[in-house]
């Protein structure tokens, strides 16, 4: 139990964060609405729009189902082997796809699965005629799984690692078989985080843009996001863009609501910070199975990344790294990534504390639960408002204040932080809930408060998920191109922008090199974000 004052502070902090997030989005929409313009787009609900909507939801649902279904066995295998030497590296690898610009990953996937890709070349040696075609729904699903299966897996492993060591000891002494372990220990832990993971993945896929166009094979495969982009960037029709954005928010939110994916299960359980020693899975069959699923998933992840590395190594990396343009872009990217990650972490902290404070009583009232849900849902739905809409809206708002280029860095940081919010929440909240449930009473009885409570009680437990959340958020911001596209001016160039600009003037080799460098920076960030973890698992192994 919190003291009444702590509860009030928590609820108020959550409310402030919520207000800031909503205000940022609503102000942008209002600015666009107020813009005098002659709508040119015609009606919203046409037969074509209806088809787009259906396709958007269909591919998002399939992508989510596949990503999650594949993530579960891999997560189980990785969680079963806390002392597996490459475990930390595999988990780091799983953050990587998010930090790369979508087009880079798409080209990497094409190098493996495309018409002239490795897979088809191998099959052609075996006498088959280009059996794999990734253009169409299949390619979209493949790419979405590539991006989201590792994300889902990473979050599921974290959930399993949070199970306390006593559980495994008990399971071991009871001689529970794999089925019982799954049923009584693993599944409940995964099931608790599954709605959160699925809704996140669903939204990422529903708002997919470049992947859908590049791998979709034609306009039959189009998402609403494409239509929004078109109405704002090409037609400059703000009312239509807003109508489509609201449609996207409403439809996606109702689908998620219907599926019961918004708002996670009740916080329960206790916490342990390091992966615990496991006593199960010692049979040969279990070892082989785990080795197989982990190996397959690593191959699936590594092949396209390897293609990016191979192409990148052919570039003149020395010249690229020492060029002024690169140094400038890398500096901007680093500052934006760090700032937006810190901002996302701060806002998430306020939201999570608000949520915990709201339901901090034996029987939280309807209003409290509604507030709890609102905080959770709004932190998720931010993904549905396209960055191009936010950017354009804020451009209009800031325009009267002078040169908008001055505000560009702050806006990009804010938009990137907003995009990272759902990820940070997913990483941070489950641990925080569990930690909170375990320690509140103890803390209250010890009378620990403020900084000392944070230092002795919260910090040791929360530092690991916070570092992971930061590395997620930084990777996301590093790979983002959308937010900068509108403001891009000569003074502000980020790495993905630089990469695109090389690509748009025939300099493919430079772009390949930059993709490799960007991947390396992302990997370095991920390693920094998980250093703590290595220490701990080493200690656990000793």
């Amino acid at each position: 139990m919190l003291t009444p004052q702590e509860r009030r502070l928590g609820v108020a902090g959550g409310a402030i964060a919520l207000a800031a997030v909503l205000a940022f989005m609503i102000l942008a929409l209002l600015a666009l609405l107020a813009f005098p313009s002659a709508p040119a787009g015609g009606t919203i609900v046409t037969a074509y729009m209806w088809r787009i909507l259906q396709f958007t939801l269909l591919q998002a649902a399939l992508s989510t189902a596949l990503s999650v279904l594949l993530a579960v066995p891999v997560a189980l295998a990785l969680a079963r082997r806390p002392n597996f030497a490459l475990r930390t590296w595999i988990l780091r690898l799983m953050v990587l796809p998010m930090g790369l610009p979508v087009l880079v990953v798409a080209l990497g996937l094409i190098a493996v699965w495309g018409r002239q890709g490795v897979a088809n070349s191998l099959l052609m040696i075996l006498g088959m005629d280009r059996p794999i075609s990734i253009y169409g729904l299949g390619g979209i699903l493949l790419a979405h799984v590539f991006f989201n299966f590792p994300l889902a897996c990473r979050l599921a492993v974290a959930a399993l690692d949070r199970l306390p060591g006593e559980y495994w000891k008990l399971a071991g002494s009871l001689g529970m078989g794999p089925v019982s372990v799954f049923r009584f220990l693993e599944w409940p832990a995964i099931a608790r985080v599954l709605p959160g993971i699925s809704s996140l993945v669903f939204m990422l896929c529903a708002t997919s843009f470049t992947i859908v166009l590049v791998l979709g094979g034609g306009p039959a495969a189009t998402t609403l996001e494409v239509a929004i982009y078109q109405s704002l960037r090409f037609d400059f029709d703000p009312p239509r863009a807003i109508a489509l954005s609201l449609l996207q928010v409403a439809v996606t939110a109702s689908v998620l609501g219907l599926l019961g994916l918004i708002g996670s299960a009740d916080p329960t359980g206790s916490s342990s910070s390091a992966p615990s020693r496991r006593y199960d899975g010692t049979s040969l069959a279990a070892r082989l199975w785990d080795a197989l699923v982990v190996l397959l998933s690593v191959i699936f992840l590594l092949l396209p990344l390897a293609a990016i590395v191979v192409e990148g190594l052919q570039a003149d990396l020395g010249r690229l790294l020492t060029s002024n343009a690169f140094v400038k872009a890398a500096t901007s990217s680093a500052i934006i990534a760090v700032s937006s990650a810190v901002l996302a972490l701060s806002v998430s902290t306020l939201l999570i504390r608000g949520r915990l404070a709201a339901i901090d009583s034996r029987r939280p009232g309807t209003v409290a639960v509604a507030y709890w849900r609102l905080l959770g849902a709004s932190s998720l739905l931010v993904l549905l408002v396209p960055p191009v809409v936010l950017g354009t809206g804020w451009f209009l708002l800031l325009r009267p204040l002078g040169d908008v280029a001055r505000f560009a860095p702050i806006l990009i940081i804010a938009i990137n932080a907003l995009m990272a919010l759902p990820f940070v929440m997913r990483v941070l909240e489950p641990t925080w809930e569990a930690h909170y449930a375990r320690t509140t009473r103890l803390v209250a009885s010890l009378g620990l408060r403020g900084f000392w409570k944070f230092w002795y009680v919260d910090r040791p437990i929360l530092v690991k998920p916070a570092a992971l959340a930061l590395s997620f958020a930084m990777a996301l911001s590093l790979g983002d191109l959308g937010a900068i596209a509108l403001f891009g001016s000569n003074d502000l160039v980020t790495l993905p922008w630089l990469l695109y600009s090389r690509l748009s003037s025939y300099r493919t080799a430079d772009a390949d090199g930059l993709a490799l460098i960007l991947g390396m920076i992302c990997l370095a960030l991920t390693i920094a974000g998980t250093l703590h973890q290595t220490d701990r698992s080493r200690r656990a192994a000793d």
Partner: protein
Amino acid sequence: MYKLYLFLPFVFGFAIAHVAAAQEKALTIYTYESFTAEWGPGPKVKEEFEKTCDCTVNFVSVADGVALLSRLKLEGEATDADLALGLDTNIAAEAKATGLFEEHRVDITAVDVPGGYRDDMFVPYDYGHFALVYDTEVLSAPPSSMKELVEGDPAQKIVIQDPRTSTPGLGFLLWVKSVYGDQAPDAWRKLRQRILTVTPGWSEAYGLLTKGEVPMVLSYTTSPAYHMVAEGTERYQAASFAEGHYIQIELVGLLKTSDSKELARQFLQFVTTPAFQNVIPTTNWMMPAAAMSEPLPEAFSRLVKPQKTFLMDPQQVADNRHAWIDEWLAAMSGQ
């Protein structure tokens, strides 16, 4: 007045300082990003023009020509731009309709573009014909006409850009419309079998060509010049189409809210002179829109020279773009 903005970053935000540069005349030109890139025409154009005037040229760049127009619409009459460089004939009518531009009133007799495009509002500064660029190591006999492209072997794939998000994509749509007229939807339904995928922009499509995923993509007749001049390879060539090629003419226009119109007009005139035109071919990889004082690089003489040029009236494009895109969507995504 010219202000240089420095971003002084610290972890949670940016402090802003501005340093006023020397008090001299300044010209603000909005353009697209690849124009101002270090290898683009921007730096040389700035240098050349500043030699002729006691002034400073400032470029503000956005992603592409369409983003340029959107940016101007967003800013309206409060824009800082004196000139907008990088519009093209397909969006010229929409640009005119904003009422933000005024007549250039400069002598453009030096301008010479295929199809003879002339306009009181915009000055052409370069042009290129759309063409399918192919990989000679894969394709030995590229289609020699639009008809052959449309009716050719569906197993031989091409990649085009989406007319909803890309100017070359829109250009190709207009090209097909120019060749086939009312029969365009039928042509698209046939061509659809050959289209591997439709990318959001030029870069993605061209990347698929250079990565060897597809042997032919929509680009410009001038694309092979880059590979010949900068990379010394003749591997990528443009296919010449018997019916003719659709042209993209890039334009620069004067904003009526400009506070240094005299200087801006001086620049518009400069655009039609060899000092500007000499820079274009090997930096923007487009054809010069007026005479150069030096010969074109040898590689340009080996490029496809379209026998016939298609160019639709900008107003016709503005009036029909939505309907034609809807027609394209129906043909490309229908059963």
